[in-house]
């Protein structure tokens, strides 16, 4: 494969932005492992899908890895105790969400021993049936660690009902400031590749490609060395551009093929998993270890010792920050506290929110990093359009949303928006475009729900009317029959009395059934 060949094969997507990545020095700091704090706050919903149901009671002693939340429904994930200790509360905890509203969760007081429960290990995962791997991954509560937190088992073992040809491992980590995947690859490359091999086996894909952005040369080198023995796993270096880590864009760049709109990657025989998920899958299948901790990037100008930390799920963000030396108070102080990256992450109102399975970063940014400034009206410069990696016209959609014309906004492809934030990032008037789109999507969803409800009501009303009509008709028929029968009976009575009784009985029975 020549250089030209490689060049020609490299597909591109239009749009995207190149924000300052701010990944170093945090990415270069050695990985630290945080011991479990005194108390862990474990929400029962940390994934896409239905919340888990608590299966422990207050006062129960739990061991690390013990299941404390049972998945409910087809798309859900189990929750496990991140350390050993005592359940001290089952109730509301502050959600890691901008609203700061309560979410149901289990509070565990650590006993300091960090004792694992009994785990079901497996020496040769490749001897397992793919479906069994899926079951083990589901039992371990593994969700996509890239941020979306979709239950991995559903995607792993043919849960999507389509044949998978290609497994793509998302190690692009395109969000600025975040480096947990980078660190994971540098420190745990062999584990990641082992996990990828297990995933290959589980999905039945022919090959796996690991997409890594070219701003992570160390990770690329280590991963290349780690995949050396695996013929079906390949490392692909891809250009650094946000949002490279978006599923559809990564697929486009790695395969040159587009996922159909309104469709899923499996429609074109592709499944995408995050590289961190691969390690979680390995731990789940080989050692039966559930997902009870994750790597979190702690970064931002206001953090005293930025870096990557392995954090038990349920640890409060404030405690993780304290573990990283706390906050700096010089240069203006913190401007924004975020969970996740700056492009799609969310601002949280307090430090008292727990790290969950989807939390890739805890960022405390100063004003310069946030880049605050004054907004203004849209001048139709078109920067948003050029930045949009999906090919939308954010300015036109926003103009429609602004005047409440949500339908027209939908006509401009609102549903295809991936909320990557590129448009708002470049907008010189600082219009909160993503917010507009979220609002309009919510409005459309509410409207769809309303339509569905009306439709259901109409169907039920129609069914009721039909039923009443039918009953009316049957009653009338029964009466008519009875009248006819009694007439016939009256006529017959003149001839023989026993027959009359029999007919009357029949009529009664019939009307009894119909009434």
């Amino acid at each position, binding site marked *: 494969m020549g250089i030209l060949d490689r060049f020609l094969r490299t597909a591109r997507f239009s749009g995207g932005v190149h924000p300052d990545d701010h990944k170093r020095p945090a990415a270069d700091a050695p990985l630290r492992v945080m011991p479990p704090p005194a108390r862990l706050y474990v929400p029962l919903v940390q994934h896409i899908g239905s919340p888990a149901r608590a299966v422990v009671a207050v006062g129960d002693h739990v061991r690390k890895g013990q299941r404390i939340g049972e998945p409910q429904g087809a798309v859900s994930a189990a929750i496990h105790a991140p350390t050993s200790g005592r359940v001290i509360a089952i109730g509301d905890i502050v959600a890691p969400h901008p609203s700061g509203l309560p979410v149901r969760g289990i509070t565990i007081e650590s006993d300091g021993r960090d004792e694992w429960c009994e785990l079901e290990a497996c020496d040769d995962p490749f001897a397992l049936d793919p479906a069994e791997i899926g079951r083990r991954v589901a039992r371990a509560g593994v969700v996509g660690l890239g941020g979306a937190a979709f239950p991995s088992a559903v995607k792993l073992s043919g849960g999507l009902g389509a044949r998978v*040809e290609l497994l793509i491992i998302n190690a692009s980590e395109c969000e600025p400031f975040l480096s947990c995947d980078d660190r994971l690859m540098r420190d745990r490359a062999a584990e990641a590749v082992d996990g990828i091999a297990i995933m290959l086996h589980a999905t039945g894909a022919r090959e796996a490609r690991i997409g890594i952005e070219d701003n992570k040369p160390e990770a690329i080198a280590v991963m290349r060395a780690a995949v050396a023995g695996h013929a079906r796993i390949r490392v692909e270096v891809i250009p650094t551009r946000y949002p490279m880590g978006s599923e559809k864009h990564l697929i486009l760049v790695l395969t040159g093929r587009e996922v159909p709109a309104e469709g899923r990657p499996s429609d074109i025989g592709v499944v995408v998993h995050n590289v961190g998920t691969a390690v979680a899958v390995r731990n789940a299948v080989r050692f039966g270890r559930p997902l009870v901790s994750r790597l979190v990037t702690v970064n931002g100008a206001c953090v005293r010792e930025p870096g990557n930390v392995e954090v038990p799920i349920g640890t409060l963000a404030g405690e993780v920050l304290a573990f990283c030396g706390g*906050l700096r108070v010089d240069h203006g102080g913190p401007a924004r506290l975020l969970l996740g990256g700056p492009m799609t992450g969310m601002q949280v109102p307090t430090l008292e929110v727990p790290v969950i399975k989807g939390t890739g970063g805890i960022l405390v940014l100063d004003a310069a990093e946030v880049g605050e*400034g004054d907004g203004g009206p849209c001048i139709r410069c078109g920067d948003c359009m050029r930045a949009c*990696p999906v090919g939308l016209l954010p300015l036109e959609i926003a103009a429609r949303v602004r005047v409440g014309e949500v339908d027209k906004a939908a006509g401009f492809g609102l549903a295809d928006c991936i909320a990557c934030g590129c448009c708002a990032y470049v907008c*010189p008037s600082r219009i909160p475009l993503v917010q507009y789109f979220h609002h309009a999507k919510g409005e459309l969803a509410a409207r769809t729900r309303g339509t569905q409800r009306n439709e259901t009501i109409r169907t039920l009303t129609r069914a009721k009317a039909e039923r009443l009509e039918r009953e009316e008709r049957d009653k009338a028929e029964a009466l008519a029959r009875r009248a006819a029968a009694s007439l016939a009976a009256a006529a017959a009575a003149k001839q023989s009395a026993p027959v009359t009784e029999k007919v009357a009985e029949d009529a009664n029975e019939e009307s009894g059934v119909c009434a």
Partner: protein
Amino acid sequence: MSGRDQFMPAPAPHAHAGTDVGRTMRRVQLALLPATLFGFWLFGWPAVHLFVITVGACLLTEAFCQRLRGCESRLWDGSALLTGWLLALSLPPWAPGWIGALGGVIAIAIGKQVYGGLGQNLFNPAMVARVALLVSFPVAMTHWVAPLPLGSAGAPGFMEGLHITLGTLPVPDAVTSASLLGHAKTELSRGIDLAQALDAAGGALAAWHGVRAGSLGETGALLLLLGGLYLLARGVIRWHIPVCVLAGVALPAVVAHAIDPGHYLSATTHLASGAVVLGAFFIATDYVTSPNTASGQLLYGIGIGLLTWIIRSWGGYPEGIAFAVLLFNALTPVIDRYCRPRILGRTRRGAPIRATQGSAE
């Protein structure tokens, strides 16, 4: 974590490229500066006074309208200043001050604020004002002067210039001159061949050095080109519109001139005279009134160029760029409607692409 700010929920993204509207406006003004200074030098104090009056009228009208509408004052975002600037550059340099003042009021009040202010107007405000003035006051708007550089013999001083601008002193007849395009049109209508007419007017008329009669800021074509290239390099504008406008004027000119040089000006003359360069880089590229997509901009640019050439060649006015720009401003919503980018995962018509299950290579 004290203070209030970090508790105010802000939507993602929590990062910004650092661009802002004011910076864009300042860059455009910087790009206009060389040609403007050249115009000041070439036409002397009356041009400076006219410029100040026009820009001042725009700023005052903007402030007044914003106050009237009760909205937040955005006087210093640079947009009204830029409108006034562009309008002044498109006026005859020795035009009376009231032309500039009235033009400023029309540009801002009628061209921009009645639509709802910045970003809402359908037409380029400066061109609305220019065309309104041209149609209403054809004499004042076509009264050109020969270049009379600052410091040269006979050039008016500061006070004399002020008198000329305020109309208290008549413009000496010796100074008046025709623009090349106007001259060509007049001669053609008198049945005089272009070759002859241009020869009589002096061959240097079409020279790129810009020492010629014309609007205040349009003569320094090379300086305008320089400014335009700066805007391109800075990413303030993209190449599509300017290149297409220039091509739209030049291509038909090349063909027509080759066929009948007696009736059609050469492409060089077209490009170097009048306001084509100013229009291509600074007026047609106005964000608000031009299409968004690359394909739309190509269409729009070609259309403006072509229409400009048509008006210049066959229309009643010697110069047509302002009319062409306004006409295509009106077409912009239509162009935007039909020229849209393809959405990822969809066909151009908007249907989801067909899934192709197959080799990943």
